[in-house]
């Protein structure tokens, strides 16, 4: 094989050790809540993972060639997410909370990809340690364990430039800094800051530390797994809903923009085209949904309609998937708006999924230009965003991404339909997984779960989550001949 094996093995085992280390936190939580059996399960899983991981890193020699090529980068990222989802599921299986492999893989992939789809019907009976781990995977996945790994990469003596390319979400215009390690460090400092802030705000509203932290993990990672069957609706508190809404909205913004705010240039953030469009879409959809809810007499007061509409709109566009209300029982136009928001997703370089707002903006400009060119074939029209011309290669990449996305949803629906559930359910489950939302439509709507699918289909949906999280190409490229053929 032509892949640069030594550094790949090192990185993958580092990821394993990292996942093992992060299990120490839920282990501690289990001990605090007196769940010794669950704590033991975590210990049985995490100790070998840490030990083996560290040993392999030590034993495998550094090798002469430490440069990573594109292929290596793709391979590492794809494998890392699959390995994480398999290993992260072990505590679920051993503790007996989710005994089936496919179910555990689905649940963990859903966590790490910050999707938030679940196969657990009654969440509230699960042990606290397990619930904590479930939410904590969101937090880890949110920023990408790999971004953390990149910060740790210097320890391994390997530069991480190539990995960033596979990992970063969507086309970006601003680079915080030249070196990857610096920007990674900065990004997760911001991430940590936002997390602590939300926990504090939630606790001010009378939420226990456990609930505050689990829901914060779900929010800032735009995951959406809750510790209650009724999701955020279980709190029955407008304050909690508003805090979560604000933080979901923050998590859906390009994290690079926070750098401007922190360095005293908030104007830069407000001028950002993607940010403005994102806010515009949220306002527009909230207004539309609340008006429709009032017209259809779904709610009797403007206050109620607004409260549920804004939470659900923000929850879906940021691809979090928390619920305070079952949007699948709303009037049909509202449901279609929700579907469209699922496709759009958050901003580039946020923790949100979907196709990203920036790609929507670019697509609309591409379509507009195509119409112009049709009528004036010789016109040369560059596409600009915020005054900067976007080069044609980026535009071509956006086009093929959008079409690939549509193809994935369409063909995915056909395959999932093999399970025999109606088309709404099949389509709903695929969009919910590929866009990393969580709840879909029909039998996988907000009040339901994904347990109904067969094992292989659950596996496929979990792979869709990972593919969606890694911008489709990273996973799909593994299945091309070009990738495996040195000569092509």
């Amino acid at each position: 094989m032509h892949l640069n094996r030594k550094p790949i093995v090192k990185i993958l085992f580092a990821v394993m050790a990292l996942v093992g280390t992060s299990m120490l936190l839920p282990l501690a939580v289990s001990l605090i809540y007196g769940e010794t059996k669950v704590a033991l399960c975590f210990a049985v899983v995490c100790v070998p993972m840490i030990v083996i991981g560290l040993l392999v890193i030590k034993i495998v020699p550094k090798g002469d060639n430490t440069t990573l090529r594109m292929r290596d980068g793709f391979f590492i990222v794809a494998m890392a997410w699959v390995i994480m989802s398999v290993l992260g599921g072990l505590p679920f299986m051993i503790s007996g909370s989710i005994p089936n492999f496919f179910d555990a893989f689905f649940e963990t992939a859903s966590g790490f990809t910050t999707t938030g789809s679940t196969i657990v019907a009654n969440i509230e009976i699960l042990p606290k340690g397990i619930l904590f781990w479930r939410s904590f995977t969101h937090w880890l996945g949110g920023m990408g364990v790999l971004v953390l790994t990149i910060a740790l990469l210097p320890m391994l003596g390997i530069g991480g430039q190539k990995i960033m390319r596979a990992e970063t979400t969507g086309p970006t215009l601003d680079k915080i800094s030249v070196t990857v390690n610096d920007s990674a460090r900065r990004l997760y400092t911001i991430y940590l800051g936002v997390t602590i802030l939300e926990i504090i705000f939630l606790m001010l509203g009378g939420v226990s530390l456990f609930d505050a932290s689990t829901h914060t993990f779900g929010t800032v990672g735009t995951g959406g797994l809750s510790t209650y069957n009724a999701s955020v609706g279980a709190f029955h508190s407008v304050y909690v809903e508003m805090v979560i809404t604000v933080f979901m909205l923050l998590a859906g913004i390009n994290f690079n923009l926070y750098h401007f705010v922190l360095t005293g240039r908030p104007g830069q953030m407000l001028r950002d085209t993607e940010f403005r469009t994102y806010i515009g879409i949220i306002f527009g959809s909230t207004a539309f949904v609340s008006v429709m809810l009032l017209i259809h007499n779904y709610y009797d007061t403007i206050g109620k309609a607004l409260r549920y509409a804004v939470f659900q709109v923000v929850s879906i566009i940021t691809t979090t998937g928390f619920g305070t209300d079952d949007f699948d029982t709303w009037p049909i136009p509202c449901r279609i708006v929700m579907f469209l928001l699922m496709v759009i997703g958050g901003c580039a370089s946020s923790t949100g999924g979907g196709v990203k707002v920036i790609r929507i903006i670019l697509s609309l400009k591409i379509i507009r230009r195509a119409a112009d060119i049709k009528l004036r074939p010789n016109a040369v029209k560059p596409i600009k965003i915020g005054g900067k011309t976007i080069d044609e290669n980026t535009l071509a990449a956006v086009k093929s991404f959008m079409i690939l996305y549509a193809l994935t949803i369409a063909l995915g629906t056909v395959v999932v339909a093999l399970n025999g559930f109606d088309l709404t359910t099949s389509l709903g489950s695929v969009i919910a997984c590929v866009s990393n939302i969580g709840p879909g439509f029909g039998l996988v709507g907000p009040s339901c779960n994904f347990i109904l699918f067969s094992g292989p289909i659950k596996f496929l949906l979990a792979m869709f989550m990972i593919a969606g999280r890694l911008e489709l190409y990273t996973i799909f490229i593994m299945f091309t001949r070009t990738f495996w053929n040195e000569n092509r």
Partner: protein
Amino acid sequence: MKEKRQKGTLGIKTALLGSMGIFIVLSLISMAVYLASGTISDPFRALFESVSAFTDTGLSVLAKDAALPAWLLIFRSFCQWIGGAMLLAFFALIFSGSDILAPSTASFYRLGIQFRASLKRLFLVYAALTVSMFLLLLATGCTAADSLCAALSTVSTGGSIPAGALKGGLSETVVVLFMILTSISYPLYYYAVKGRTEKIDKSSELNVFIGIVIASCVIVCATLAINGTYDIRHSIEYGCFQTISNLSTTGHAIADISAWPSFAQSVIFLLSFAGGCSMSLAGGVRIVRLIVILRIISRSFTVRIHPKAVISTKVNKKQVPRHLAARMSAYLMTCILFYLIGVFVVSFESPDVISCFTMSAALITSTGPALAGNIVMSDVSAVSLLLWSVFMIMGRLELYALFIPSSRS
């Protein structure tokens, strides 16, 4: 005439506005017929019925069980046939990205003297297909009126066969056959007659189309048989009929698809997006564009690994110029956008989520009745019908109509 030929863009725009104009005038005339005869009292409904016929969509606001007079059925099918003829004229006038790649490229490409010749060829094929289908249906025992309706409505890919018109498996086979025939590039027939088989051999689009026809029929029929939806004979009969009906975007419905296994439903649904070959009467995205777009997608994978690679796209053994390929992907994106807007527009009248998705496809691909889902046409409000008409026209004119307002010149 010569001056006009030199100003290519002006020609396109004039042709576009002309086609729209003819569409509107004919629709108004046919609308007047419905209103005057008292068949439909609401002008908006009459307009929708007319546009639906001229765009070969085939959706009808008339209640299905209402016993309609024979003249009305023939009139409606005739409108669909005229709609097909208009599309052929439109093809001869304008050549989009897809059509440049058609085997006929060289002779059709420019406006001018060749326009008349090419139009004549297309019309000849169209008329020959219609007449032979009519005669074959007569031979299988259908009445003259029913045969006429079915022939006019099938060859044009309209999609409204009067209830009970088809007499058993043989006449259904005839309909299936002609749905396939009308989805093949019309210029190929001309070449076949002239004996220029090398042109046909070169058409990778035709090969892919035939491949899709066979594969999808096998998949759908097998699904129906394995699931026990029908016995084997009916699985094949209904399976093939509905599959081809959607692929050719005709939209004839002889079985209730909504009761089928969702896998078969989803396959059939996607087929109407694929549509037929370029320069045929079938709507949808068209096979040639799909081929190019799949190549573009596969190229995008290679580019991820080898950022500097230059890979050419070939169709019909000819290289597709870069700018054309780029334009085609932009076209597909326009389709997707337009389709999603359609889903939203339809949602105001739909009883469930999935019907929004199927009905929007029914309108934009001009498939019609087979994809109506759970929407009851006679209950749809007048405002929606008006909006839907716009979607049908744009879909039929390959979204060109969309481009007019965006030009400020």
